[in-house]
């Protein structure tokens, strides 16, 4: 919509902004709205884009949070949510597989090792994310630097 209907950005600018928000820390879509909004109206543009993105969902989810607090104990609701969670986990696995395919398909280099180390550190060892990140991110960036 941003590119095709409104002509707010060229496709190239869009990809650029999207790539940037992908690897900034924090929620990608939120980052994107800030990057996108700031291109137009600086800080005000970023704030407007953010409010537009987050406002309506926040109202809806607050209502859902209230309803869950009231009715979360109902067994039927619990069963439905459990089924949704199981499906959502499957979706996550598909995301991982799609991301991993290009990394693992290249000849065996450092990228899969870093990914496996991050997985083991957080999922198996249950170390704090900031710790794992502070150790692995510099190593990974350093390896990417050397390889170029």
């Amino acid at each position, binding site marked *: 919509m941003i590119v095709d209907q409104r002509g707010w950005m060229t496709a190239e600018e869009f990809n650029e902004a999207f790539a940037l928000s992908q690897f900034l820390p924090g929620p990608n879509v939120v980052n994107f709205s800030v990057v996108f909004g700031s291109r137009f109206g600086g800080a005000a543009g970023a704030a407007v884009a953010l409010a537009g993105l987050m406002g309506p969902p926040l109202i*809806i989810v607050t209502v859902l949070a209230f309803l869950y607090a009231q009715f979360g104990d109902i067994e039927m609701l619990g069963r439905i949510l459990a*089924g949704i*969670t199981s499906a959502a*986990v499957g979706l996550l696995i598909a995301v991982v597989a799609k991301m991993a395919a290009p990394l693992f398909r290249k000849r065996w280099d450092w*990228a899969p090792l870093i990914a496996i180390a991050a997985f083991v550190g957080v999922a198996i060892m249950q170390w704090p994310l900031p710790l794992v990140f502070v150790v692995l991110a510099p190593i990974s960036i350093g390896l990417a630097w050397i390889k170029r």
Partner: protein
Amino acid sequence: MNDNPLIPLFGYFAMLSLFAVGGANAAIPEMHRIAVDVMHWMSDRQFADSFAIAQISPGPNIIIVTLIGYHVAGLAGAAVATVAMCGPTCVFAFLVARTWDHFKEARWRIAIQAGLVPVSLGLIGASAFVLARSADHNIYAALITAVTAIVAFATRINPLWLFAAGGILGLSGWL
């Protein structure tokens, strides 16, 4: 004084927002560790439920922090958690967006982008693992996960259909 949950709520999510490369999906294990294991804000099942609600809600999945915040401290908790999770990273994104274009071809910039991909991949994998442990308690639940993974990988189906199917199967009482 120290019992006010809003302070750790803000502190944890503000910190998390700066390390969650890969977005909400990468931050799930750390949220789970804090909310369930460290702070005992909620049960494993309540966390998994919050995740499910955030998935089917419109808007970014990071909205799970709003649900956790609400669970901990009502409306104030919801507001504090949301601002903490989005605030620091928004300021950061804003600052980076202004300077980033000047370094389009810089070698260090390419290295950062390439280097962070495998890290976030591992983190998202860890999210799937942590949630699977919370949600897939029996063979039917694990089957839903496996089938959903295959369908989502092989097709471009709207995820809402998969959630609907999972919810109906869950309701049927097999899980």
